[in-house]
């Protein structure tokens, strides 16, 4: 039986919405260029050079992406590309703005003969990565272009990926494990999610995220009949058969492994949430969600109990009550977290002894593991500084927040754009996710439905984990903020994600091929 949506579409088919898409894209570009202009006008009193080089660069790229999309995927969802451009553009403007101020710091450091700050905002670099990201979008659209000939050279649609289900799964796992391989893996800012490729640092997890969606979609579309079979009934719940529990338990162990090896709570939560939601979409069984949530609860409980996982506890303690740990919280062998702040004697003793990081060395003397809430609190201070209307782009001091250009870019946005700006940003994200979900509903193939649903949900979940982290809704973990954070891996992966959604939306919205009926209408034999 056709769903309601399909019945409606039979009467009212989707239209090409290229004009609307262009109008929204033009708005996104005006938004970006205005942001650049405001940075310069407010900060230095004149239109900044970056407006033409970096802002202009983005406009050219976005126009190219639009024309390729309009030519090859004319039925594509009109909003996805403009929304992604708006996010990418605002992110660029903020990084440009941070770059201007850290550049001064850099200059001062050079003059004073000090070592340069290694991690800093880098607008030209980010523009380069935007170029690569949108380039990948264009390439992906070209490769996945809608051709009538299925055997055209390089013809590859999202559907094609179904053939390589297990291969993508394997590649995803290898990518995830790479950062813990000694030699190539690198720990940056307390999380092992990076690898070094030549001069570049890459976060393979960003790509693994996409590959995992492909793998889950392919796997679940095959197994969903079996996995939705009912074993026992327990009250209102119909439990699955015990033998079908295998995959979810494997994924659970895998995520616990990620949590332990990479100390990355966010990635673990992201992958597990993704799997459970896709499992639910595939089987329609609420019991799977219950089992997933139960396993997650058990996992978190175990993590907080096991001594070698105590740093999870430490993070939760510091998250719940960050103020005493501003200058340091020390995790002792007993599993207790004690503050090492300037009021404590150990801190004073270390400071008197001339330690540059008294909290850290005091904790080391106690034999504990150091962590603090400084980053989180300084991020919150930035949000507090912004208030409802924000200081205005170029008029705040977002560079004071550590990692203001990457993990905490959302807080930097909050400082200068205020609550108003953040609500707008969240709405843009929510719109992308919902357009993706709409694509999933409109898709005709079960595999593509799962794929589109999974890709949209993982984007939303990632925004939730990182934005929730920097606003103290949930414990802080280091994920990138899609399209905003500085970093090539994230931009490339997310632009590919948008390309996939665009392609699928084109398929879903394209009118179904009409049967050629040149023999005239079928004759009605009987109306009864």
């Amino acid at each position, binding site marked *: 039986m056709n769903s309601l949506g399909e019945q409606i579409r039979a009467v009212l088919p989707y239209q090409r919405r290229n004009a609307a898409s262009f109008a929204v894209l033009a708005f996104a570009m005006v938004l970006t260029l205005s942001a650049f202009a405001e940075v310069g006008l407010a900060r230095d009193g004149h239109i900044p050079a970056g407006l033409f080089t970096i802002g202009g660069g983005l406009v050219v790229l976005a126009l190219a992406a639009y024309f390729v999309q309009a030519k090859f995927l004319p039925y594509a969802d009109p909003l996805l590309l403009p929304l992604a451009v708006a996010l990418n553009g605002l992110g660029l403007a903020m990084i440009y703005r941070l770059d201007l101020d850290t550049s001064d710091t850099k200059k001062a450091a050079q003059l004073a003969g000090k070592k340069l700050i290694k991690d800093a905002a880098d607008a030209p670099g980010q523009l380069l990565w935007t170029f690569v990201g949108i380039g990948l979008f264009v390439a992906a659209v070209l490769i996945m272009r809608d051709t009538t000939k299925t055997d055209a050279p390089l013809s590859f649609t999202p559907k094609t990926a179904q053939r390589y289900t297990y291969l993508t799964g394997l590649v995803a796992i290898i990518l995830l494990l790479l950062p813990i391989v000694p030699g190539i893996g690198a720990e940056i800012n307390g999380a092992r999610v990076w690898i070094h490729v030549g001069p570049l640092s890459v976060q393979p997890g960003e790509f693994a995220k996409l590959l995992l969606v492909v793998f889950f979609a392919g796997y679940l579309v095959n197994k969903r009949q079996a996995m939705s079979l009912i074993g026992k009934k327990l009250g209102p719940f119909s439990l699955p058969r015990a033998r079908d529990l295998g995959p979810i338990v494997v994924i659970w162990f895998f995520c616990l492994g990620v949590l332990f090896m990479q100390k990355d709570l966010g990635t673990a939560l992201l992958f597990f949430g993704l799997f459970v939601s896709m499992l639910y979409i595939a089987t329609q069984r609420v019991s799977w969600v219950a089992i997933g949530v139960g396993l997650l609860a058990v996992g978190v409980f175990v993590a907080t109990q096991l001594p070698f996982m105590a740093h999870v506890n430490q993070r939760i303690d510091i998250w719940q009550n960050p103020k005493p740990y501003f200058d340091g919280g020390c995790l002792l062998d007993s599993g207790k977290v004690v503050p090492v702040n300037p009021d404590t004697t150990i801190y004073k003793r270390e400071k008197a002894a001339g330690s540059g990081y008294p909290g850290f060395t005091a904790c080391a003397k106690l034999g504990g593991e150091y962590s603090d809430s400084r980053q989180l609190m300084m991020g*919150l*201070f930035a949000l507090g500084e912004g208030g409802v209307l924000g200081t205005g782009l170029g008029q705040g001091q977002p560079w004071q927040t550590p990692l203001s250009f990457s993990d905490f870019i959302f807080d930097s946005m909050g400082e200068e754009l205020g609550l108003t700006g953040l609500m707008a940003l969240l709405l843009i994200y929510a719109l992308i996710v919902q357009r993706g979900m709409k694509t999933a509903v409109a898709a005709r193939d079960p595999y593509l439905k799962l794929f589109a649903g999974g890709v949209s949900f993982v984007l939303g979940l990632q925004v939730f984990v990182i934005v929730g982290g920097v606003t103290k809704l949930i414990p802080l973990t280091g994920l990138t903020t899609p399209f905003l954070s500085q970093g090539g891996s994230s931009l490339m992966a997310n632009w590919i994600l948008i390309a996939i959604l665009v392609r699928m939306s084109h398929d879903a919205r394209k009118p179904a091929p009409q049967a050629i009926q040149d023999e005239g209408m079928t004759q009605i034999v009987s109306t009864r």
Partner: protein
Amino acid sequence: MNMDKPIRWVAVFGMLLFFGLMAQVNYVQGSEAESLRTDPHNARQYQDVFNSPRGQISAGGEVLVTSTPTGKDNPKYGRTYKDGPIFAPVTGYFNGNATQVERAYNSLLGGKDKRIANQHWFDTFIGKKPEGANVELTINPEAQRRAYEQLKAKTAPGRRGGAVVIDAKTGAVQVAASWPSFDPNEVAPQTGDKGVKRLEQLDKGSGVIRPLNDNALSQTFPPGSTFKTVTATVAMNKLGMNDQTTLDTSPLSLPESGTNLPNDSDSGSCGGQAPMKGAYAESCNTSFARLALQLGIERLNQGAAEYGFGKSVTLEPQMPAAESDVPVNYTDADGKQQHTGRDATARSGIGQENVRATPLQMAMVASAIVNHGKLMNPYVVSTVRAKDQSELYSASPKEYSQPLSSDQASQFEDMMRAVVQAGTAKNLQGMNVAGKTGTAEQGPGIPNARWFVGFAPVDNPRYGFAVMTEGDGFGATGAGPIAAAIMRQVLKK
């Protein structure tokens, strides 16, 4: 099997996640913003404070504190205090951190207060930085100068003096002077590291001198016989007495130790029996010690609390005065908690033992009497105006308490007049002041705390005052003339 239904539910769940984020962002940037901005860990509130001019502080139309460009990058603006030491007890200092009015009105002076932003929302909207607002004090600058000179001249070397004058009807503080004081110019932002060192030195002080804690609002002293006003008030309220009640003024041997509590002289009113008015005017110790014994330390403590004892009086938000007290329990030299015994209660009744008061506190006692028994909350800032002269804040007088009835207050006025006419302060006749003298002993070899607490003018009084200065001799001669000189200046129109 159709997947649309679960996809829709996942979409709804996704929206819920976003609603959660939106709610949290609203909470953090809406309701928590102010407390995040003032969080002690938040270094932002202290940075940038030297980069824009801070508002002025003025008194009686005379500008006292200004910000001046230094011509350097950091700090861009310094702070200049006219007659710094004279006005320091009220203005405080500013060097990033701040004290007194500089601290209490930091956000307005610094231009960061919401009231400025609200009034000038369009400036905020177009990105113009709000400018610091100007604070006008209630202080009478000429009287403040007179008080400082007088205290400086009449206080024993190495000792302390303080004077406070309050407009009794409103609680506006006219004078809050301290000797010795410090010069806020020496620790202002432009002084750099030198100022930081000087501040440490000032903080340490020498002997009993703590220059950063002024002797008008922030230090307590034994109030001596001036406390008899409080004891008499409590006796009127709790024992139903009035100024004509006959009191036993004969010699008193203390109940526990049996030692003799001396009167200054055992003649006149203090020769055996006298109405309260006479015993008060001639300051008979024995009769007020007996009243204290009759009341007990608890009732004395509660009665004194009506005047403000036992609490720190808040002059302005974040500008509390030191706490005056009539302790029921106190911590002895060994750090043990002790109950105030019978002998100590008797001595507390005459403002000795562990009774402590700031000059502000005693001026409040006098003001309550002047204002017909109603004590107004003292304050030091009258108005705050933005750069364009629009008013951001204006003090509204608040009643603090009513420690005595209007009738009792007029009895006390007469009792205080009697002190000058026929009692311990006959030397002040014709100087248009009335009040109670006090001479508190502070231990062997330590100069007395000499007090004069009262009001002016004598007829239709308007101001309550308290003057305390350490030195040899008595309150009437040590503090009385200072009070008369200050009040002559205050009353000059």
